[in-house]
């Protein structure tokens, strides 16, 4: 009886996001219904992720240049917009190529593109201001709610600048996105937030080519190895994903 009443109370507190006030350790509230995930529409990857990126959590796409970070992000954005959701992309250094985004299948009418300022030399105070604005924009979008997927591109921001960010930056973002239906994605050179509830996709990719002769050779795509890490959600593994080169971009 007492256990039942306690469970009811805990459930009510959890529904109002007040469970942090409890002194007892509660088991994590993990949504398992399909709507709690933002799938990419790639069978193997979605299976490895247990349906997709978790909503209400901060996930990450990390990797070096040409590892396929943006390619995979485009895929998640395309899937979200094709489902009828709206998505936001915070483009810290204004690097989005509209033609390739369209070729990836993103419904551009449902994509909110927040453009940072393109800089000839991204360093110093100018870079810090750009980074600060991008994170503020991320907070605004997440707090506004209603977006299925919100992504911020930090891939070209030097790691030194990212390390100078206050330690609680991503914690604040995590708290803002918690409990919402928004899947938040950070794209960077290495894992930044390391959110316990989200997933980290570490990418290792190399471009593939067709044709041996100089004149017949062309870029055919990117072969990615996506390593999924999420200790709390107990998912993990490595998934190969092949991307094809866009035509006309």
């Amino acid at each position, binding site marked *: 009886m007492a256990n039942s009443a306690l469970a009811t109370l805990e459930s009510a507190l959890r529904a109002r996001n007040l469970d942090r006030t409890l002194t007892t350790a509660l088991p994590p509230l993990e949504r398992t219904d399909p709507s709690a995930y933002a799938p990419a529409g790639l069978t193997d990857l979605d299976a490895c992720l247990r349906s997709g990126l978790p909503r209400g959590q901060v996930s990450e796409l990390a990797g070096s240049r040409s590892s*396929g970070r943006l390619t995979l992000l485009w895929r998640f954005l395309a899937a979200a917009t094709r489902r009828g959701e709206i998505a936001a992309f915070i483009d810290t250094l204004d690097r989005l190529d*509209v033609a390739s985004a369209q070729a*990836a299948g993103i419904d551009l009418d449902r994509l*909110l593109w927040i453009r940072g300022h393109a800089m000839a030399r991204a360093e110093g105070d100018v870079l810090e201001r750009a980074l600060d604005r991008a994170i503020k924009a991320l907070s605004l979008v997440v707090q506004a709610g209603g977006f299925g997927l919100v992504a911020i591109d930090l*891939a070209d921001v030097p790691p030194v600048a990212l390390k100078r960010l206050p330690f609680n930056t991503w914690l604040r973002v995590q708290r803002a996105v918690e409990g919402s239906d928004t899947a938040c994605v950070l794209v960077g050179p290495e894992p930044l937030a390391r959110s316990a509830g989200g997933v980290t996709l570490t990418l290792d990719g190399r471009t593939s080519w067709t*044709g041996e002769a100089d004149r017949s050779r062309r870029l055919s795509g990117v072969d990615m190895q996506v390593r999924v890490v999420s200790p709390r959600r107990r998912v993990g593994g490595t998934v190969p994903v092949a991307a094809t*080169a866009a035509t006309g971009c």
Partner: protein
Amino acid sequence: MVGVMLAAAGSDAAMVLAVGREFSPRLEAFGALEVSLDLDGLARVFGDARTIAHEIRRTAADRGLRVRVAIAGTCTAARLLVRHRIGVTVVEPGGDALALAGLPLDLLAEIAAPQADAAALGTDGDSRGVTAAARPASTPAPALHGRAGRSAQALGLSRAQSDEQKQVQALCHTFRQWGLRTLGQVAALPADDVAARLGQFGVEWQRRARGEDARPLVPAVPEERFEQALELEWPIEGLEPLSFVLGRLMEPLSAHLERKDRGAAVLHVRLHLVTKTVHARSLELPTPMRDARTLRTLALLDLESHPPGAAIDRVVVAVDPTPGRIVQYSLLTRPLPAPEQISTLMARLGALMGEGRCGSPAPVDSWRPGAFTMRPFAPTDEGPAVEVSSALPSVPVTALRRFRHPVPARVAAERGAPVRVTTDRRGLLGGRVERAAGPWRTSGGWWESEWPGGARMQTPEGRGAHGGAGTAAVGVDATAAASVTPAPLLPPSQPWDRDEWDVTLSDGATYRLFRQRDADAWFIDGIVD
């Protein structure tokens, strides 16, 4: 009992309406100079119908208007009579048909075109000396709001009436050919025979000839002003105190809009400053909205970007009303955020990132590299909402991370193909070319300016660098270059002529390079990622 007041040509339309409103709130305007009044119940105030008619005429004369007044049992009968008889005409109840019987047939065409017959009144016998009826300077003109919209509406209406008038004229011509001259003769025709020969249209106008109304009177609702103003005892400076003032003004404005089921299409904020100037801002809202907090936030965010230059004496907030929004949610799709939320978010983002930095990307119909445009972010509920697997390609498509300012590069080339790429950009050190594919030559825009030859290239610094001798050469063949060329931007009117390469360097990354052919300069356009 219906009264019709017809003013002489040249009269002030607003004044005609104002005189009508002094007698009855239920009035309908036919054109600018004719007003139909529902006079039921006025007998207790003014007396019998003839007294009411004379009172209307006297009031109009006081306002500088010369009018005819007719009172009959129906609006149509009164409209026909007022055109035929000068001064005051009053028909006793039940006497409409008799009063109309002797009227000429052509009046039917006139009531189909109120504007035309009003002008005609200025030339007939009664209007001698009336055409120049001017409003006394001391008489205040009633405010007319949304005059432009009303004019456009009136334009469409008068066009339709003009078509109807032509049809009625043709009908009258037919009646005359049948030997009919008066409305009474038309009214006496057997309705079945009229229907057989002239169709429903003929029957309808035969009823008018009998004085019957085709439809009930549609009262004209005066346009309402949605405006709130506040005089401040002490001038205020800064946006924080202004937010409280705006909140106080927006609340009643929002309540007024809600009562009338209206939304704000455009929000006007006028700040009267201590310098005796007015700081006016207008916000066009993407959808009709009336939430006070949203409107206040939008106004404040706009004023943050465009602050007033001095302290504020008086605050006026007004909106252009539009019919309220009707939202139908779906059980099957996830609802989108309300337009109020999106508007507020966009305003906040605009204030943070700058004007024109937020929206939906859109491709343009051009081969120009990196061409795009921005559109306002306004998602609709009519989304695709299709299965992911059927709408998306089975494999992802590679993305390009494009440098909006291409990065100048030093490229060593052998037989025209790049073999080594280096840059001065921190983090883009470059390296040996391991794989390369190209060149793909693209050019365009040459028809839009002086090209080829000394074509001007726009540089990020805003300088115009001429291709050829004026540009530091960076494209080298098997030897290192000494300097780099400023990166070219490609505004819509500039030509381009380039050879593109995809190269994988020894650092493991794959780049999109291009050689600008006129300047023989190399740039990194983007990174395949």
